């Protein structure tokens, strides 16, 4: 169960970052709530996942999922580069995560 929690923690971090962007644009209650709740949930799930997953693996996977998620959001919403190189690095992150899951 720890791995799904860890992946969810990474995805929630992406929502938190979207929250930061929204707060920067419009500093209202809803955007602040989105930002705080997302990050809080992300950290709680990360802490929970770390009870069974080793520190270095958990941290790297959490950051990796967050990075891929942010890149996808950036490509869709903020016209970030969609180069082959970026696609390959995204696949590389996913494969590394799978590798870490397999080696345990």
């Amino acid at each position: 169960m720890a791995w799904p929690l860890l992946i969810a923690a990474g995805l929630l971090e992406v929502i938190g970052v979207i929250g930061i962007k929204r707060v920067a644009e419009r500093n209202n209650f809803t955007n602040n709530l989105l930002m705080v709740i997302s990050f809080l949930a992300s950290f709680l799930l990360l802490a929970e996942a770390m009870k069974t997953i080793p520190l270095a693996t958990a941290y790297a996977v959490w950051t990796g999922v967050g990075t891929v998620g942010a890149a996808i959001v950036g490509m869709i919403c903020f016209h970030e580069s969609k180069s082959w190189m970026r696609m390959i690095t995204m696949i590389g992150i996913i494969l590394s995560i799978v590798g870490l899951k397999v080696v345990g």
Partner: protein
Amino acid sequence: MNKKIKTMSESRAWGYVILGGLLEIIWASGFKYESVPSIVVLISLLLSFELIISAAKILPVGTVYAVFAGIGTLGATAVEIIYSGGSVSMLRVAFILLLLACIISLKLTSRGGRG
């Protein structure tokens, strides 16, 4: 070229990134190991956020996150190796380094059309 603007200097901003990265190692380790007091975890978590957001206002965001992720990941790996007395599988470390290389590459190319 260096126009004076009312913000902190770039070198100070880089200092923030490095300090933020080090604090990231502290809170992440605190999540895993109970020997780190909760209050230290909480303060380092909030402070690392604050430092990174401040730095990202001045420096290129992709570069800031790449350095930050690098310090955090390598730091977490070092802490785990120390804590476990060196009993960390080399294969796992290799995957973590591959993951980190991809993360850094992806972060550095986050600006559309450049790099």
